[in-house]
């Protein structure tokens, strides 16, 4: 692209840097999720309910429209979103392994990662469960005039949860700085979207509830980003929005699922819509980075995640008594361990 505008060159440069950064982030997410799979195979994860976001890296176009201070909630498939918002992969993997140094002291695991500092109000294992929280965050931001936006990330499956529409209506009615982001990976477990939803024009649904609605091709992170910029600009000005990021879930629903309900052809086709590969190809094609540089970048991401996995696996498990902590605030009465209670009864 050429432009007579003298400011255009730096702008383009910035955009290019941003595009490269987005690529790097997508690659990190991909590498991270691969390590999650490895962790499971090595028996180092806490359980098998691990939902990989491979294929959904295009969501980086949305997270890149967020700024510091913005908050968010995610669904059970939220590793990628959190990494993109600045998470430390070692602490994430530690949490996924139920380790003490994990983000949640080994209490939450893969489906319940959160981090106050980075604005992560919590991953949720209830489909739709975290969606209304952003309405409340929006109320706080509106009332306190902070200019922050709160974003709910969820899957296409949540499009059939009633609380989503209740939340959309509230956000629109009260003009809250809120964005609803649906990562539509075509499946809820084994159910393809058209077997779960009578209408699949989700942006139109959002429109019917008074939101600005957009739909973007998640295989093209730059297109996602452009659409997200608009939606976020509106949200920051009190016009809440909805953005759908289309994707394909490359792997099974969780680690035990081999996706017998879909064909090899469909999977091959779906995996061709690879946001990471696409972004790389585009960077090369547009001459923004050469293959060597990108290879180096990929290798760095892989090495980083290897180190994170090593750290996580070596970390210790939480001590048993910690299980009684964090039910309530520390300064308030805590649950009495059963053993202690039984002893008290028999000694009475």
């Amino acid at each position, binding site marked *: 692209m050429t432009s007579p505008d003298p400011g255009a060159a730096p702008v383009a440069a910035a955009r290019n840097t941003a595009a490269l950064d987005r690529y790097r982030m997508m690659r990190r997410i991909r590498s991270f999720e691969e390590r999650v799979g490895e962790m499971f195979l090595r028996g180092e994860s806490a359980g098998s309910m691990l939902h990989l976001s491979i294929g959904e890296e295009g969501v980086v176009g949305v997270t890149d429209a967020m700024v510091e201070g913005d908050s968010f909630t995610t669904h059970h498939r939220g590793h990628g979103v959190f990494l993109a918002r600045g998470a430390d992969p070692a602490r994430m993997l530690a949490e996924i392994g139920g380790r003490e140094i994990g983000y949640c002291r080994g209490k939450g695991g893969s489906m319940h990662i959160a981090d106050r500092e980075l604005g992560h109000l919590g991953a949720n294992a209830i489909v739709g469960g975290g969606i*209304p929280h952003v309405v409340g*965050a929006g*109320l706080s931001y509106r009332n306190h005039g902070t200019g922050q936006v709160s974003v709910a990330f969820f899957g296409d499956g949540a499009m059939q949860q009633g609380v989503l529409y209740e939340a959309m*209506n509230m956000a629109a009615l009260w003009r809250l700085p809120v964005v609803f982001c649906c990562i539509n990976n075509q499946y809820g477990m084994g159910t393809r979207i058209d077997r779960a939803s009578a209408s699949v024009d989700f942006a139109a649904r959002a429109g019917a509830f008074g939101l600005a609605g957009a739909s973007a091709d998640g295989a093209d992170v730059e297109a996602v980003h452009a659409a997200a910029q608009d939606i976020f600009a509106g949200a920051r000005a009190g016009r809440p929005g909805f953005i759908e990021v289309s994707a394909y879930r490359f792997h099974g629903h969780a680690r035990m699922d081999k996706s017998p309900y879909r064909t090899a052809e469909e999977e091959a086709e779906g995996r061709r819509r690879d946001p990471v590969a696409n972004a790389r190809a585009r960077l090369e094609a547009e001459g923004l980075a050469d293959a060597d540089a990108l290879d180096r970048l990929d290798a760095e991401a892989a090495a980083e995640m290897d180190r994170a996995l090593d750290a996580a696996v070596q970390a210790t498990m939480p001590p048993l008594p910690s299980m009684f902590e964090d039910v309530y605030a520390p300064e308030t009465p805590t649950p009495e361990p059963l053993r202690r209670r039984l002893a008290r009864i028999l000694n009475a």
Partner: protein
Amino acid sequence: MTETTYREALRAALEDAMATDPTILLIGEEVGLYGGAYGVTKGLLDRFGPERVIDAPISEPAIVGAAVGAAMTGSRPVAELMYVDFAGLVMDQLGNQAAKSRYMFGGQIAVPMVLRTQGGTGRSAAAQHSQSLEGWFLHTPGLRLAMPATVNDAYHLLRAALVQPDPVVFIEHKGLYTMKGPLDRDRPDADWGRALVRRPGRDLTIVTYSRMLHESLAAAEALAGQGIEAEVVDLRCLNPLDEAVPVASVRRTGRAMVVSEGVMTGGVAAELSARLQELCFDQLEEPILRIAGEDIPIPVSPDLERAAIPSAGLIAEAGLHLMRREVAEWAR
């Protein structure tokens, strides 16, 4: 010290707290313009404006969900659930979200919100508007639970709820709103989480809370006429649950009844009975009796409605039998 109603005391608590803490906001159906289905929030919209007193659509799950999110981000929301009977719509947001966030997230994220609601019978409001569902909340770790029975407690327990670091379910009783009593804004009856002996007695202990306190006190009065002195303990909070006061009482009297409006099976009365039995076993002279709601939905017809929950008469009758063990003719 002034004489006022339970309803006014609740409103005063909200008003005083909101005047002090600008992060408090009310969100619920009809809390603003209408002033609350039972009039508790009347006038607050005018005083604090629509950004803090928020009339919500009929979307209970999202109301509670929004309160959770607001609590996570520096507000202190008071969500109102118009009837506790609608709890079935919000148990996910309450039980899986509000109650568990601090824990699941390793202590990072607090949810300092209050869910105000009201329950109980007395208005021929039938099966979906008359329940006492505190048992569900009691069985949900992470939730605090307060149920005031007096005017002064209506004020002070609500003020205390509004400074708790964790989610509080605060259940008013629809039959108490017009009850009058003394309010001393400077002196709570006792601290948050403490039970209170509302009437001393040596023969028998009645452990109760919420509106059943008054039926229990009336029963104690009736029993006194028969020479039986019942001690009446008002729990005030169910979580934290103060075992010490009722246990001390029962160890002394050796006889106990627990009184709850909620249906008997699987409810609060069972918990209280189990606890007292565990900690007073060696002192018990008689089995602990549960006087609780019948194991049925609440019928609309007024006489049936009344008969579905404990009354002073039934409590006194049971107390008498517990003391005298002359029950052969009692069965019907």
